[in-house]
């Protein structure tokens, strides 16, 4: 230790100088590039190209130079600093782009509509007493309970059944396909399915079927409250089942054949095998997929915006947030909703992270 220190004393000032130079040099160079790009009127295409070049090579040069400096340090210190050099910028960026805005949103949620008068937690009280917001929370719950459950159950069923069929690939491809469609496009497609118009002629698929079977046409997504939410949830199921199915299929293929064979020889029937072997074996995947889909349904926004605009009792927290923040310009209330949504997602995320850690993701 002492010997080591002696060795370095000679280079410490030099090292410090180099470190400082590289650090400040990076700062200056990139600020200059930034200022140049900001203040020079260029052709937009040229802007984009320059920005990409700067983005890629700039980041590379920062990492490269900092690493070069650290390499010059004595081994012990280097081992301690090096990880931070590599993870530091990402953490800083996340802090600036995610953590600070979250804090600011929380701060805004304690203020009135114009962010001028302090109102304490009255926004939070309002969220849980206002009819519109209670409706939004109720609908979110519906989305999670019906939407997420259906996606997981159907995904699992299809994965297991397809596994034993002769046309597994085709079936899975068809079910997976809606995943490739954007939410908004899916909304448009389903708008045509649910379309209702007054009069005798129905051009919406579902109403055409209902009329052909002798029923009377319905305005599926606007009347029939609160069941109209279920018609919107079907869209999510249609889109997300494929995602669950693919992951479950992969997990299913990972179950050793010997295990299943041994169970069958011991006289277990298919149900017992499914519940006692397959499910426990896939538990990790099931939890990961479930949490992912639950977070997704909690944040659901685009389907509802496209289909109903949040009218007719179909508001969820995210659409209500958009309405309050951007349409009513009530910043306190809007921010409160954002925070409520964040709090609702946190437990699920924690569960998800735990699962990852178990699987050695961390």
């Amino acid at each position: 230790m002492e010997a080591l220190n002696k060795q370095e004393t000679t280079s410490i000032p030099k090292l410090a100088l180099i470190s400082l130079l590289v650090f400040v040099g990076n700062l200056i160079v990139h600020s200059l590039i930034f200022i140049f790009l900001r203040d020079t009127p260029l052709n937009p295409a040229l802007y984009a190209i320059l920005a990409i070049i700067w983005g890629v090579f700039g980041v590379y040069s920062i990492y490269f130079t900092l690493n070069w400096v650290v390499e010059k340090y004595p081994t012990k210190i280097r081992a301690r600093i090096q990880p931070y050099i590599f993870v530091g910028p990402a953490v800083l960026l996340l802090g600036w782009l995610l953590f600070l805005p979250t804090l600011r949103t929380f701060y805004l949620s304690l203020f009135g509509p114009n962010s001028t008068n302090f109102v304490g937690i009255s926004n939070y009280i309002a969220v849980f007493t206002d009819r519109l917001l209670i409706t939004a929370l109720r609908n979110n719950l519906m989305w999670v309970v019906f939407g997420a459950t259906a996606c997981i159950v159907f995904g699992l069923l299809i994965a297991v059944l397809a596994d034993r069929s002769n046309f597994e690939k085709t079936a899975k491809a068809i079910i997976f396909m809606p995943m490739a469609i954007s939410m908004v496009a899916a909304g448009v497609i389903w708008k045509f399915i649910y379309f209702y118009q007054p009069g005798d002629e129905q051009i919406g698929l579902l109403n055409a079927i209902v009329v052909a079977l002798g029923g009377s046409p319905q305005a599926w997504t606007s009347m029939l409250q609160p069941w109209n939410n279920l018609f919107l949830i079907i869209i999510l199921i249609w889109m997300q089942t494929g995602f669950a199915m693919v992951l479950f299929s992969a997990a299913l293929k990972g179950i050793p054949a010997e295990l299943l064979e041994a169970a069958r020889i011991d006289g277990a029937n298919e149900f017992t095998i499914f519940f006692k072997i397959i499910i426990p074996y896939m538990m990790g995947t099931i939890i990961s997929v479930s949490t992912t889909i639950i977070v997704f349904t909690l944040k659901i926004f685009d389907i509802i915006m496209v289909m109903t605009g949040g009218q007719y009792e179909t508001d969820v927290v995210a659409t209500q947030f958009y309405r309050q923040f951007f349409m009513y310009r009530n910043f306190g209330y809007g921010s409160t909703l954002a925070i409520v949504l964040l709090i609702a997602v946190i437990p699920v995320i924690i569960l998800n992270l735990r699962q990852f850690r178990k699987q050695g993701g961390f």
Partner: protein
Amino acid sequence: MSKLKRKMLSFTAFLMVLSLVLTACGGGDEAEPDTTGGEGDTATEGTGTPLERAYAGEYDGTKVTMFGPFTDADQVKFEESIKEFEETTGIDIQYEGSKEFEATISIRVEGGNPPDIADFPQPGLLATFANQGRVIDVSTFMDMEYLQNNYNQSWLDMASMQGPEGDIMAGIWNRSNVKSLVWYPKREFEAAGYEVPTTWDELIALSEQIVKDGDSPWAIGIESGAATGWVATDWVEDIMLRTTSPENYDKWVAGELPFTSDEVRTAVERMSDIWFNEDFVYGGRNAIVTTAFGDSPNPMFSDPPKAWFHRQGSFITSFFPEGSVPGEDYDWFALPSIDEQYGTPALVAGDIYAMFNDRPEVRAVMEFFTTGESIKSWIQSGGVVAPMNDADPEWYTTDVERRMAEFVQEAETLRFDGSDLMPGSVGAGTFWKGMTDYVSGAVDLEQALEEMEAGFNK
């Protein structure tokens, strides 16, 4: 390995040098336009108003971005009306329309990316931006004397809004339309032997007669994306003006007369007498909430008509089937008087253009929009009433259009669309949503009125 490293090092060094050279060459000029809207001309050459200089070709090749709620047929008409100006001046007006205008404009202004000019159908929403000091005061460069000559004082008063440092002129009125109109399929109407009703009772009696004859009298649709519900607010305003005094209406718009008051409740109840009567409305209540406002008049034009009345502003003619002839296929009568003492008031609405970025070419375009010339082609294609005095009455191509202008001029009571004047949180918020919830059966009337009122004191 070390070779590669050396290469990388030299490459990095080269990059740094290159970037230094690049930045050294780049002049640190402020390309940002001056948005303070101060006195005095920013440009040095040329004389005259921005518009005159634009016509002299001084701003040839510049771009002005515009954002507004016109889509579909209206967008085509708008593009048509500015074409000549663009060709003469060489200014490229890039218009972008959105059905989610109310929400999107907020996002763009908040995000520091406003359009040069935005077209607000709701002065109330614009007032919010004016309050925050985000709008440029047009009186800093407009010739006020000219404006006073070209507009009725009431239009100018409505453009005056409270800024952070006192009143500013937040925009200019470009296009207006009349709302208190009931459209009907004229030829079939006469063939059926019906007569245009002049009182509310006659209107209801005729509606009942039509039901007896086996049709639905009314065609109503309020669906309009995130803005669903505005059609219902127009009805409420129109009936309000016919059942209570203009003073009460003004108080209501200003937030002094609550939604929960008897005056408003009466108006909504009277509307419900028609709306919730399944025999009276084509397709019943389901159809009202699910039919897009632009599609809702269609049943009047089927052969034979399935519905006979459609209460809507003058702009709806843009949505009528192509080739329908005004005065033959369709005509209008004013929504009849309910209480004699209040007569037959006219409800009007309009678009106010506001400016977010102050550049000479934007000023020129704004000035252009104060001339009748800027909506000439729109007037000719119908559905628009000009608020400017220099618009030639000859431009109205049909009697149907001309009678609208007369109706506005002769009305004893003239009031602007209330929901457009209310603060955005009510006028483009709780009032729309509350009416939609009420009509779709999500809430009862009391609850709806309370929720609409709640938009004010947030």
